[in-house]
């Protein structure tokens, strides 16, 4: 089978052909057994992709459900034994004390800084770009040369979005959270003006992380809730995997 017929089949699969081209593709599949086999292989492959996508989506909701379940009081399973009311009261008191102690411990130990430390991981630039095509600021970022990233980003405003974003990340790495917040906000503002979404998801997520690092819980939680509700958000899965208890504690502490 030629590479040309392969391309025609994939275009046909992606509904990119029309009119006569569609008919020709059908004839090609119908008349040539090898091409028919290739076509069926493609259909199976796409079936697998859709299955994997659906499985991934159900898996994400399963995690959400399991997190919710951990909050809910579940009835004890297995054999139910009768218990005297005195013993039952004792058991209830023990459970109450344990839950109380755990809650107090959680309340005292969880804060925006601890959540930030647990969930922050550096942003990695896509490795699909070769080093030859990467520009100076990308190279400096890949080399973790944060000061150089900041120097290179000192160009007249409005700065290109990538420059603004990498500058924000560099400030974040240097723990200059106020400056990072300023730049992430700028990325979001520029995107909203141009109806673009370049580095939008990343800017939102890392803005939330900067707020956490800066002890601005309420602002961080508002963004994290938005990301959690948006299944297409690049960081949806990561936020869904954050401990619901930790976020609840932050919510209580922020008095939101």
């Amino acid at each position, binding site marked *: 089978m030629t590479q040309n017929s392969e391309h025609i089949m994939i275009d046909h699969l992606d509904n990119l052909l029309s009119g006569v081209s569609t008919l020709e593709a059908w004839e090609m599949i119908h008349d040539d057994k090898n091409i028919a086999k290739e076509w069926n292989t493609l259909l199976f492959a796409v079936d697998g992709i859709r299955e*994997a996508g659906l499985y991934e*989506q159900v898996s994400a909701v399963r995690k959400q*459900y399991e997190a919710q379940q951990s909050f809910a009081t579940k009835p004890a399973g297995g054999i139910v034994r009768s218990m005297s009311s005195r013993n039952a009261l004792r058991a209830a008191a023990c459970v109450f004390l344990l839950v109380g102690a755990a809650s107090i411990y959680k309340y005292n130990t969880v804060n925006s800084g601890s959540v930030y430390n647990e969930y922050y991981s550096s942003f990695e630039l896509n490795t699909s770009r070769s080093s030859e095509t990467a520009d100076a600021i990308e190279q400096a970022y890949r080399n973790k040369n944060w000061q150089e990233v900041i120097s290179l980003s000192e160009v007249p405003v409005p700065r290109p979005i990538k420059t603004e974003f990498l500058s924000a990340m560099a400030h974040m790495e240097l723990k200059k959270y106020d400056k990072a917040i300023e730049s992430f906000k700028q990325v979001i503002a520029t995107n909203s003006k141009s109806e673009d979404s370049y580095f939008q998801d990343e800017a939102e997520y890392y803005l939330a992380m900067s707020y956490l690092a800066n002890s601005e819980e309420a602002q961080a939680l508002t963004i994290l809730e938005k990301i959690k509700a948006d299944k297409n958000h690049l960081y949806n899965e990561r936020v869904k995997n954050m401990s619901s208890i930790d976020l609840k504690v932050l919510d209580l502490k922020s008095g939101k």
Partner: protein
Amino acid sequence: MKAVKKYDDVELIAAINDKKELDNAILFIYQEYAETISSFIISNGGNQQDADDIFQETIVAFIDVVKNNKFRMEAGIKTFLVAIARNIWYKELKKKERAGNREKLYEKDRDSNEMDVSQEIGDRETKRELRELLDKMGESCRKILILFYYENLPMKEIVQHLHFENEQVVRNKKYKCLKELTEMVKANPLIAGQINELLK
């Protein structure tokens, strides 16, 4: 627990067919039917982990049936889900080759009036094999293919999501990834056998 939107059977089918509502529909299925399916699996030789995994497979199979318009509402959703879970669980038992007698006992105890959903759900084993092929691919290929063929995102949005240079780069990458996947499909004896059967 966070309140989840409630659906009757007709509304749930509509929600499954609505991309924006699908997450809520799945969460509702979990909250409404997880206990029923768990009880069934556990009382038929499984443990909690089996129950959780089988229920996840059941939901995937059910959504697949609904999206392919194969759910005709002849039975309630709960009955249908139990029938799917039973089908998947018995096949799993066979696959695991648990004690032969025990397997026969389950089969013997099965009610002849049980709902048969094998036509509707098709060959789940093949679907699982296909899914596992995707898991063997690199993360970037997997993402591109899922965003394009499952999420139906246009190339422009994929460029922004994954930070490629332009649409042509993504198009080339998608072509290579699909080619890689089809080679894996051809190399899988179970799936390749089925493709050859189709052409006879």
